[in-house]
């Protein structure tokens, strides 16, 4: 088994002290160490946001791209080299706001990768505006009278869009979070881990204590992770009791399984470049 320290990057995280994202970074490093995946075979892709800075703090290959666009890049990287362990990370604004179109279709496509969303229910990097998961009537910088829209349910969205592993973790429970991430990496298919990762600076509502009072683990209640309807029901449980854990898991052929070029053989990126004989194709055009 590898050591967690092998996955620690050269740069120290510059998140605010107490930010939930520290725990996510740590849990990811722990999961990778547990699974003994060599750092150079790990590809972490992110968008833009506090949470999207994560690839800079981990020892692996990274791609820090555009706001909302981590999933297409991660998909391309995975399809270009399906030997890589591909992990996309980002925030609720990144994944459920500007990038939600990609989220919907990446679930459906079932590419084998893990998507970790640090869901702090606010736009952290841009200093505190409402996000797609901000609850109704919450005052933020962009909603001085309280938000008008209701919050989106990432778990329910992932379920309806065809994600094959749908889980929720909490930065206040690091070991459990690492377990959820480990399960996601091991899962064959598109895996979402939505993480309550409190923004201690701009979200004064959904705080650590707020979550601690409410969260419970599905595992403790003999939840059936094969039951889609039950998972949907649990996805909308909010308020006094909020579930953590694995909501749903199903085996479905991945995009790689279905795509002949990926099913067999060497990843494209590792195939030697050679001139292609066009003779056979040209026959059609004479």
């Amino acid at each position, binding site marked *: 088994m590898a050591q967690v320290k092998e996955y620690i990057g050269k740069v120290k995280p510059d998140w605010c002290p107490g930010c939930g994202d520290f725990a996510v970074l740590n849990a990811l490093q722990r999961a990778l160490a547990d699974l003994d995946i060599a750092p*150079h075979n790990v590809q972490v892709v992110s968008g833009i946001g506090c949470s999207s800075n994560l690839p800079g703090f981990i020892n692996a*290959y990274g791609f820090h791209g555009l706001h909302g666009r981590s999933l*297409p890049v991660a998909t391309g990287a995975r399809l270009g080299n399906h030997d890589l362990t591909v992990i996309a990370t980002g925030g609720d604004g990144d994944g459920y706001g500007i990038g939600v179109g990609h989220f919907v279709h990446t679930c459906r496509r079932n590419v084998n990768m893990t998507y970790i969303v640090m869901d702090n229910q606010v736009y952290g990097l841009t200093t505190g505006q409402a996000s797609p998961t901000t609850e109704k009537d919450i005052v933020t910088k962009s909603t001085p009278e309280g938000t008008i829209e209701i919050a989106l349910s990432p778990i329910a969205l992932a379920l309806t869009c065809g994600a094959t592993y749908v889980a929720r973790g909490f930065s206040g429970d690091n070991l459990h979070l690492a377990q959820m991430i480990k399960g996601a990496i091991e899962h064959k298919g598109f895996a979402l881990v939505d993480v309550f990762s409190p923004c201690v600076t701009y979200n004064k509502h959904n705080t650590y204590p707020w979550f601690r009072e409410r969260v419970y683990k599905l595992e403790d209640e003999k939840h059936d992770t094969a039951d889609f309807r039950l998972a949907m029901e649990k996805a909308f449980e909010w308020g006094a009791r909020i579930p953590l854990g694995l909501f749903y898991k199903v085996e479905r052929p991945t995009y790689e399984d279905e795509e002949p070029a990926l099913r067999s053989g060497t990843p494209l990126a590792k195939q030697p470049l050679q001139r292609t004989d066009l003779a056979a194709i040209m026959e059609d055009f004479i």
Partner: protein
Amino acid sequence: MPSNSNSNHRDVDYVFRVGGEGGEGVISTGEMLTQTLARAGYDIYTFRTYPAEIKGGHANYQVRASGKVLLSYGAAVDVLLAFNQEAYDKHIGDVRAGGVVLYDSDSFTAAARESLIYYPVPLTSLATEKIGVKLTKNIVALGVLGQLFDIPLPTFEHLLKERFGRKGETVVQKNLQALHVGAEYIAHQRKQDAILLGPGPRQTKSLILSGNESLCLGAIAVGCRVYAGYPITPASDIMEFLAKELPKLGGFVVQTEDEIAAIGAVLGASFAGAKAMTATSGPGFSLMTEMMGLGVVAEIPAVIVNVQRVGPSTGMPTKTEQGDLYLACYGGHGNCPRIVMALTSVEDCFYGIMRAFNMAEQFQLPVVVLSDASLGHRKATVPVPDLSRVPVIERRKPSLEELVNYKRYQYTPEHVSPMSVPGVSGGGYIAEGLEHDETGYPAASNHENHLRATNKRYGKFHAVEQMANELTRIYGEPHPEIGIIGWGSTEGVIREAVQLAQEKGYSVGALHPKILYPQPLAKLTEFLQGTKAVIIPEVNYSGQFATLLRKRFAYDFVQLNKCIGLPFTPKEILDKIEEVAAHVHSGRRSSAYAAKL
């Protein structure tokens, strides 16, 4: 009875146009005629217009066939085949004096014009009564054309067997029968015209390709194995072609949810080490601009094809324009050097896309390749490609020494750094969209670093500009009195206009670069010296290339803009040359006839 009496088939140069109801086989009739003429040994050049709707509306297909190399779709129509009144009314004005009109007399009766030759043929009833299948009227018509103009019938027969073979022997027989019904019908009529083809002069096999098909073959040849895209006219057939061919070579096509995802997947796949491209048209290209900037800053090889159509917005989806040059060169925010090249002919689509991949790999940045609807969708005879003409270039990889304290964005004399791929131990780095230092770590508050890094990215242009100079073509006189500067798909038509003008005694020459950004400044400077006037023809409204050139040259360029969704004809350019020449010779300043806007 026509025979091979046409002693010099090199003199053959005819324009055939087929018009009728969209969805009723007009396009496939045109295609079969084209293929037969090409196989018979002629050079061909097609042009088609089709409605934006799928079924219904007017469609037409034009093919010019010649014993010599063709550079444009020609001018007046020699033979019009009209399936209905609408087609007749729309095109009759384009038929030259003495030209031939062949029409379906079951559909309408033409009010004959004196200067033209008419062959009314009951195409529909011949098809329904003799064959029992109405749609074989198209094949009956081909039989008529073959017999009347001595286009070898066996070549038609061979093609029909190939095309319909998969549908079974009965279908093949019915079509062959239809061909002969047409041929026999017209053989009994008196021949009134002088048009005769016979076998053409070319002996060697050549390919019949559309611009988009040629581009696909080139992409495959240079090693592209990943295509990500979203459907859009007139680029979709690139995705469809590659979806069929790439899997046979171990590659694949991903149809993404939008164009942002398409270029995102291309960057991701290329970052991982595969050769990837996307193709789109204006609306999709607009969506891609933010990602293009990411590709420039993170220094990722990528090929982005834009088969331009009429804009802005949804515009005219099936019509052609050269309206996206500004966007290609300057689209997106920040100081953002990418390479922009334009494809100039069907053959150039093959070699051009190979060069695009090579430049993307060599300079580690996105290369925008501009084509357009007229080029992407026209067919031409192309010599079997010679792969040795363009070598395959790979990106620079880090050596073992460079992997010690690896710096992804290391400053080098040529401004290109070693690029590691995921999976290589010791080569880990972050492809970074934030401004970064040599290692790839963000340096978003380091002011001096931003200048150094920007210099690095623009530094690549020195070598690209050299290539741009080498890839600039000159036609006609190298030091003319009247110069023409064109770009992209207008190359052929400009060449033809230059030839016509030279025949009339004008001192004319044309310069045609393949790389438009950065510009081939040395070649342009040399060309402009000594010219008295320079015309810049563009299929757009505002003169986008002319505007870019004015930034670099204090020269009073004369714009010639066509903005009706159709390509130039040689005559339009020739007329402009003559008009400008008249002004030059009368000593008037060129600004007197500047852009008509």
